[in-house]
């Protein structure tokens, strides 16, 4: 450039002189587009000497974001020898960038030879609003760009990202420093498989086929992770080599989609795997979806399941089954109707299907579909196995309960025979007296009446004892009945009266008035009470007789539960044994089998109740049985 400066010295002298005359920043360039002079104002403005500015040096003072465009305008106009105006930011000596408005114009010698360009620039940073529209626009744009939550970036065809907002940097994991150093590049951000997609999009944009291209791809973040993004790219208006891109993070949408897909396939597999009949019906009872199991029980003609097909009315099918004599089918059709009409939150029934060679049990469950148009989902599962197991367990418990009952009653046999011998002895005595009186010539009939009356009462007493014992000794079918627990306890205490006297135990009854009824098997519940009371007797064997007191207490523990407490005055149960006492084979007696409390627990569990042991604050153990009531209406003792 210095050569050209010398060859065209006179003209350039003139241009330089002009530059020094104008009151603004000014520069001069030669035919080779190189700058040859910067005036004094320029030098003062930037704080650099002419030597420092010449060559490429001055370019550094132009704001990096503006440099490219700045050059393009210059170069683009130069070849056409056109005037141009441009706005750009230039660094002042204090390091602050100032917005300059610049005008450039070609220079010709007197004989019309092109000599280069001259340019003047004015600092418009401090101009008022009317004059500062550019600056304001730039500021507005900057704010819009930087604070936008949408990731935005400017790119060039050669793959550079020349500017990006915070959101974009956050998305890609790069820093502003990376951006400044040119570390952020389109190809670096794009995994290999998407590069072609990018290229095609740019090609289309440049060919004017589309104003904007939108497509999904992935970004390769700086940390190596991939982010799914939705790309919306377009060229900057008036440019073919640069554009703007908006990249939306699709991660959460992808996740939701994946979850949706997962739950859909899960539902599908659940639906398919249900080992029963699954019927989905609409609000009028028509079957809209169906899953028929392969097991034989569901395919028999006699069952209501066989006739079910898409489009058929399922409620009607049950009604028909009911009419043909299936009692439970009526309950099911009512249940489904109830759920469809939203009168019932759900419906469940275990029923035995008639017409099958061996007893078969199903559980039918009706769930409403939670959608505005209504409908219901009905599942039917073959529960015969479970039912059989339940029955077996019930039978086993009954057997075991019976055996332990017999054992326990055996231990108490002496007491029971005493209970029985008492009225028998009295009867015999009375009968002998009657005989004697009758053998006299003039028997006293009033006295005879009285004695015979006693005999009758005593016979009844003996009969009652025998009946109770027979019931306890018998195997007895499990019979669920409404039971007044107080009455049951009084019977048990009566049976154990003699045992209590023998063991020198004072029995205190604290029975609540108007105790609600519980549902259960009388004999099994008597067994539990008997067992707890006998245990309490046993627990007090080693304490002095006057202290042996047993309290039998009943009360309502809440609206739904009746509680029985058997409290002794014995030494109590070691805290670590409070749970294990209910284990099978736990015993403190040398001759005991240790099944008593274990059976008690099984019995109470079968009654949907709970049994527990605690120690009373004043000493002694408390065994507590809690049973659900069947009716809230109280029943007097």
């Amino acid at each position, binding site marked *: 450039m210095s050569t050209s400066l010398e060859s065209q010295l006179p003209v350039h002298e003139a241009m330089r002189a002009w530059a020094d005359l104008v009151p603004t920043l000014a520069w001069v360039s030669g035919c080779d587009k190189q700058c040859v002079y910067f005036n004094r104002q320029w030098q003062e403005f930037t704080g650099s000497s002419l030597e420092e500015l010449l060559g490429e040096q001055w370019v550094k003072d132009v704001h990096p974001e503006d440099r490219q465009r700045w050059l393009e305008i210059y170069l683009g106009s130069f070849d056409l020898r056109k005037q141009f105006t441009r706005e750009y930011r230039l660094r002042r000596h204090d390091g602050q960038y100032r917005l300059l408005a610049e005008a450039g114009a070609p220079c010709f010698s007197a004989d019309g030879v092109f000599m280069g360009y001259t340019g003047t620039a004015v600092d418009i940073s401090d101009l008022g609003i009317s004059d500062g529209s550019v600056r304001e626009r730039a500021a507005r744009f900057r704010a819009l760009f930087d604070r936008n939550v949408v990731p935005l970036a400017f790119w060039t065809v050669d793959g550079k990202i020349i500017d990006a907002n915070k959101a974009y940097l956050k998305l890609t994991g790069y820093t502003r420093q990376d951006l400044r150093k040119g570390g952020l590049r389109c190809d670096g951000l794009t995994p290999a498989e998407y590069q072609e997609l990018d290229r095609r999009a740019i090609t289309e944009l440049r060919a004017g086929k589309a104003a904007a291209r939108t497509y999904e791809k992935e970004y390769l973040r700086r940390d190596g992770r991939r982010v799914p993004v939705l790309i919306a790219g377009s060229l900057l208006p008036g440019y073919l080599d640069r554009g703007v891109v908006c990249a939306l993070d699709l991660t959460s949408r992808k996740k939701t989609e994946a979850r949706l897909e997962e739950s859909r396939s899960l539902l599908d597999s659940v639906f398919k795997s249900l080992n029963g009949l699954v019927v989905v019906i609409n609000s009028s009872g028509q079957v809209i979806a169906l899953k028929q199991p392969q097991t034989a029980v569901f395919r028999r003609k006699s069952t209501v399941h066989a006739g079910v097909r898409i489009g058929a009315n399922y409620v009607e099918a049950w009604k028909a089954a009911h009419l043909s004599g299936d009692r439970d089918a009526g309950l099911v059709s009512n249940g489904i109707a109830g759920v469809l009409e939203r009168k019932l939150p759900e419906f469940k029934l275990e029923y035995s299907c008639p017409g099958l060679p061996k007893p078969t049990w199903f559980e039918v469950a009706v769930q409403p579909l939670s959608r505005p148009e209504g409908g219901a989902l009905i599942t039917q599962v073959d529960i015969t196995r479970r039912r059989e197991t339940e029955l077996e367990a019930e039978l086993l418990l009954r057997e075991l309960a019976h055996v332990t009952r017999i054992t326990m009653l055996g231990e108490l046999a002496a007491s029971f025979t005493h209970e029985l*011998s008492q009225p028998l002895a009295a*009867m015999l*005595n*009375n009968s002998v007296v009657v005989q004697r009186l009758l053998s006299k010539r003039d028997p006293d009939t009033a006295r005879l009446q009285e004695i015979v009356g*006693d005999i009758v009462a005593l016979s009844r007493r003996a009969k009652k004892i025998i009946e109770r014992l027979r019931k306890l000794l018998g195997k007895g079918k499990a019979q669920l009945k409404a039971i007044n627990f107080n009455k049951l306890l009084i019977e048990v205490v009566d049976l154990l009266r003699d045992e209590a006297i023998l063991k020198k135990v004072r029995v205190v009854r604290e029975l609540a008035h108007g105790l609600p009824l519980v549902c259960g098997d009388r004999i099994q519940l008597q067994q539990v009470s008997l067992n707890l009371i006998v245990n309490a007797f046993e627990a007090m064997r080693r304490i002095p007789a006057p202290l042996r007191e047993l309290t039998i207490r009943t009360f309502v523990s809440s609206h739904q539960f009746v509680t029985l407490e058997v409290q002794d005055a014995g030494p109590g149960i070691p805290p670590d044994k409070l749970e294990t006492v209910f284990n099978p084979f736990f015993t403190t007696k040398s001759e005991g089998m240790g099944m008593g409390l274990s059976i008690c627990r099984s019995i109470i569990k079968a009654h949907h109740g709970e049994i527990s042991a605690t120690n009373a604050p004043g000493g002694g153990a408390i065994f507590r049985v809690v049973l659900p009531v069947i009716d809230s209406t109280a029943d007097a003792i």
Partner: protein
Amino acid sequence: MRSEASTVFVVDDDPSLLRSVERLLQTAGYHAETFSTAESFLAAKVATRGACLILDVNLPGLNGLELQRKLAERGSPLPVIFIAGHGSIPMTVRAMKAGAVTFLPKPFEEPELIGQVEKALAQSREEARKWAELTSLRQRHATLTARESEVLLQVVSGKLNKQIAFALQIGETTVKVHRGRVMRKMQAQSVADLVIMAERLSLSPTQDPRK
């Protein structure tokens, strides 16, 4: 042999059984007195001489065996017939060792009960007789002077007059006089009689029962 006025006490906690036994005894011609607890029987402080007690083993509070022991501690000679709904062997053994007449399981037959009541009453009467005898013997013994008592002890231990005189440091004639008085006061026919009496009075040569 039956004494019409004999009293039979009955203790049982079962009122109907108590009533039936009472009737049975009345029909058999006894005077029956009934109690429902051992405590009420003890509190009544009845005259037990020549009577007997039908006692239920299993009583609330103080039980039959305990009542029997209490009576023995008081020195009562009242014979006891136990009745029980169920008598365990140890219980029976304890009762019999403590001197019970018998142990009848309920229900019992009338002849058996009456038979045992008779046995018990006879025992009671015999006891009464022995007791009366002993009482009179004690009264006779009480009339002896100190020296006569000493001579009595020497005599029943088989010593000769000479030995007694030496032991007591008195003259042999004096011993003879004391000896004659002892025989008369004790109403003894012979030395053998005197020995039996001393035994009944639980006298031993080394100790004087009055001390």
